[in-house]
């Protein structure tokens, strides 16, 4: 049977829309499934107390601190490197073999699975450099992991800055560095910020790499060389070992809420940037 073009059009559009709606409902399902079961268990005590008996009771305060520290450090380390790379690629050089190699490196890093980062962080930071299972090992591993995201988004943001801005800056007698820092970076800031916020999101979600590098100690870390468990890993342990389902749902809700906030902020920054450039 050969369909008439109009009927094929009708069928295809219906099918495509159905599949797209399936996707959206999957998203809503994931979020609601967790939040409906988890939100009722979130209380001030849950957020501010340490876990007792392996997380069966008590809260997740040390994990919140651990997550903030690992994530914050990772982005603090990766941001200057990523933005610096983007500045070099856009403002300080022409397209050449060298830039092709640098881009290839960044693209490859973006594709490496997190478990490989975990293995690398374990053998390099934890063992070879003797940092042990610690906040700093986890942060350095995550920093390499989010580096490609920061490079890519910063580069796009810097490229989106209109060329006329640069000409005007040169026309006023600025050096290249003055032009870059005071005109280009200032304009591209919200765009670069989007990349940084997305990297924070990626670090918070990460589990496999953190498990092998930051360890899973339950206490509040006292120094950068202390092991610390992140929220994602705590959630994994709670659910996998069946320690406490209510606490697992509540921890997952905290994670989901954090990711929601991060995505909204990233979206808002991107909006700021596009309106500023336009």
């Amino acid at each position: 049977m050969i369909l008439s073009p109009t009927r094929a059009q009708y069928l295809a559009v219906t099918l495509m829309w159905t599949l797209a709606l399936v996707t959206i409902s999957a998203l809503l399902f994931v979020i609601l499934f967790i939040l409906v079961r988890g939100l009722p268990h979130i209380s001030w005590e849950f957020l501010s107390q340490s876990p007792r008996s392996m997380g069966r009771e008590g809260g997740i305060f040390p994990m919140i601190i651990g997550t903030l520290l690992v994530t914050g450090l990772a982005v603090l380390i990766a941001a200057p490197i990523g933005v610096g790379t983007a500045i070099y690629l856009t403002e300080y050089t022409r397209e050449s073999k060298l830039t092709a190699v640098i881009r290839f490196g960044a693209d490859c890093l973006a594709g490496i699975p997190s478990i490989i980062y975990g293995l690398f962080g374990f053998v390099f930071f934890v063992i070879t450099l003797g940092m042990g299972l610690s906040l700093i090992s986890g942060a350095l591993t995550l920093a390499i992991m989010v580096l490609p995201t920061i490079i890519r988004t910063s580069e796009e943001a810097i490229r989106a800055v209109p060329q006329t801005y640069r000409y005007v800056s040169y026309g006023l007698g600025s050096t290249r560095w003055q032009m870059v820092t005071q005109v280009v970076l200032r304009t591209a800031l919200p765009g670069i910020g989007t990349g940084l916020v997305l990297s924070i999101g990626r670090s918070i979600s990460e589990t496999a790499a953190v498990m092998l590098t930051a360890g899973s100690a339950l206490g509040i870390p006292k120094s950068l060389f202390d092991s610390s468990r992140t929220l994602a890993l705590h959630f994994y342990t709670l659910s996998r070992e069946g320690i406490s389902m209510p606490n697992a749902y509540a921890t997952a809700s905290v994670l989901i809420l954090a990711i929601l906030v991060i995505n909204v902020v990233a979206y808002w920054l991107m909006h700021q940037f596009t309106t500023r450039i336009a």
Partner: protein
Amino acid sequence: MIEQQVGASTVFMLNYQALRGFFYRHRERTIALVLLAIALSAIASLAIITLFIFKEGLPIIVRMGLDRFLLSSDWYPLEGEFGIFPMIVGSLAVTAGAMVIGGTLGLSCAIVLIQFCPPRAVIFLKPCIELLAGIPSVVYGFIGVMFLVPLIRDYLGGPGLSVLASSVVLGVMILPTVTSISVDALQAVPPRYREGSIAIGATEWQTTHRVLLKAARSGIVAAIILGMGRAVGETMAVIMVAGNTLELPHSILDPVRTLTSNIALEMSYATGDHRKALFATGVILFVIVMFLNTIALTISRNRRSDKK
């Protein structure tokens, strides 16, 4: 004594001033050099990661022989037997399943976003799909265990923890990758192709599948291959829903263990050769992922140079 100190500090001052003068004169060049050094850190990281993974993993592969390591089904860490064939099959099976589900859904989303969607809905749909990419993989795994696995066990049989469950979970996880790169590829098709097709009386769907999809074909292939790379490398979600047995699966309802879950499951207690064998598993995974990524990168690079 005092003279010496004064002398030393004068020399220091002089040096400092000379240094400052030098930087001042060559400021731009210094900045360019520092930025170059920073820019090289990405490729340096890649090199050092490759080096350390291979350094730890290769000895076991060499000792076992590549063919025995890849094709043997005996994984007995205590006896020094390391064969990863079932895990390779497991990884391939869940990736193939994820491709079917994630590819179909992801590509449909991309087509809807580009072709059939009113701009107002795009503002809502696009962030939703990006959000899907942001949700932690452990959360996907958890929902797989709590919802999908019992569903499969009750209605389709088997233990529930299976290739099928992993494929569905992974499919949803790689969908945002497929969608966003396909959207880029579809957007890059010159508008005159579309206009020309509509002008000669083709319907929107004919335009989509005979013109747009054809013109963007290589980009879509790149999107799907990148999605494959992500599916092969995904760890935590797969551990939770795949069942992790060491046997070859006979149907999509059988449990499997993937390369990634093998590493993550045993790394916490492995020592000596066992740990090295896990790194060797990592080497194989690394090679597979790099192979897929290089193909995807080459395709998208060729596209870019075609356009110029």
